[in-house]
């Protein structure tokens, strides 16, 4: 019983991060994660071996997709735009500005590209795992990833944060 908790709980911070990145509202994101965990607990016996993390992300992703289909026309970009009009940001908050711009640019991508970018670039899932979670072939994942990265770059270069782009992020192995 608590073996299940021990296997699921280490992934909760990542599930919350993914849900938040897609929904951009703290409460709704945690609601989605809660639905995901409830389903994981009740379907634990149906899990067919394999990686728990990928399984959890599959459940979360499917819930997100079906929920989004239901609320398609409502639009939920408001939370970030609400804070957008702050002016005169002191130096200490420069970081927050960069992060905010990044999340706004992410939000401007098609949803399917957001998912791929997050699963691979942030959650460190393999291309094959991401393909399994989203339910498309690996080739589709690759082309979505490429389109997502190029589009995100254009969004960030274009009108959002020309001179504030972080410059100290070299991490070549």
């Amino acid at each position, binding site marked *: 019983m608590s073996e299940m908790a021990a296997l699921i709980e280490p992934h909760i911070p990542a599930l919350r991060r993914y849900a938040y990145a897609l929904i951009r509202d703290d409460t709704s994101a*945690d609601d989605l994660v809660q639905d995901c965990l409830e389903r994981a*607990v009740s*379907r634990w016996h149906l899990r067919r071996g394999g990686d728990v993390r990928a399984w959890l992300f*599959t459940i979360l992703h499917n819930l997100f997709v079906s*929920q989004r289909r239901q609320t398609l026309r409502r639009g939920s970009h408001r939370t970030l735009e609400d804070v957008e009009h702050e002016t005169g940001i002191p130096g200490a908050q420069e970081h927050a500005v960069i992060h905010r711009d990044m999340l706004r640019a992410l939000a401007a991508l098609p949803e399917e590209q957001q998912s791929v970018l997050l699963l691979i670039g942030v959650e460190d899932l393999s291309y094959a795992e991401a393909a399994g979670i989203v339910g498309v072939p690996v080739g589709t994942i690759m082309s979505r990833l490429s389109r997502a990265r190029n589009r995100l770059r254009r969004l960030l270069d274009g009108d959002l944060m020309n001179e504030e782009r972080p410059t100290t992020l070299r991490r070549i192995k």
Partner: protein
Amino acid sequence: MTGGMPIGDDDLHGYVDKRLDSERMAAVEAYIATHPDAAAQILRYQEQRQALRSALQHKYDEPVPVRLRIAGIQAEHRRRWRRSLGRVAASGLWLLIGAAGGWIANEELATGRSAQVTAASASPVNEIAQEALAAHRVFAAEVRHPVEVDVTQEKHLVEWLSKRLARPLRVPDLSAQGYQLMGGRLLPASAGPAAQLMYDDGTGRRLTVYLTAEDGGETSFLYVHDRDLGGFYWRDAGFGYAVLGQADRRDLLATAEAIYRQTGDALPVSGR
């Protein structure tokens, strides 16, 4: 070039995400040493990747809210399970009463059947597919109320739907295809009542089997798809069938065949 495939865009991404094997990694490194454009591209991808991670790091570092603790969710799950067991026990009595009523009603139906059958017979098969697609879109997305009668009352479900469709309906077992029955519901279709059975693969991917009473001749499997949703429909042994899900065509065909095998011969309802 060192004999391998030329370096492509996917290699640049693979390099950034550290998903290349060491040989390919070396090939990309050799390539970018002489192609400054590709080197710049990689650098931009790397910066962007890191920037996105930093932008979301605060969410990862936050303490997990109490309501997301597995122990609490497990306890709630057990509580709900016990409550539904109690309800099932209570409904056992009603089932007995219902079964007796159904027995009598069935006799009535057998005589009144011919009239109903003409009303329901032989709607165009693609109409079945369209109505099944619409029903799937509406109910497969339901998180809280996907079915009207759930699997804990499977016997009741079978009897009820059989009665409404005026013929013995069998619930296909799709566990070999990885799907477990969640339950079902009754729906209005243009030719009369229709039944929708819903299945789940354990990750939340749902499959529906849609049935209507049909007396036209048998048809072969026909493929239908609409955006991300696909499936097969056919007519056989007194029913129009459609099976729909977000799976690839080959898997859906295998599922359709499994249903066909299990439902083809008109055996009486097993009721399990």
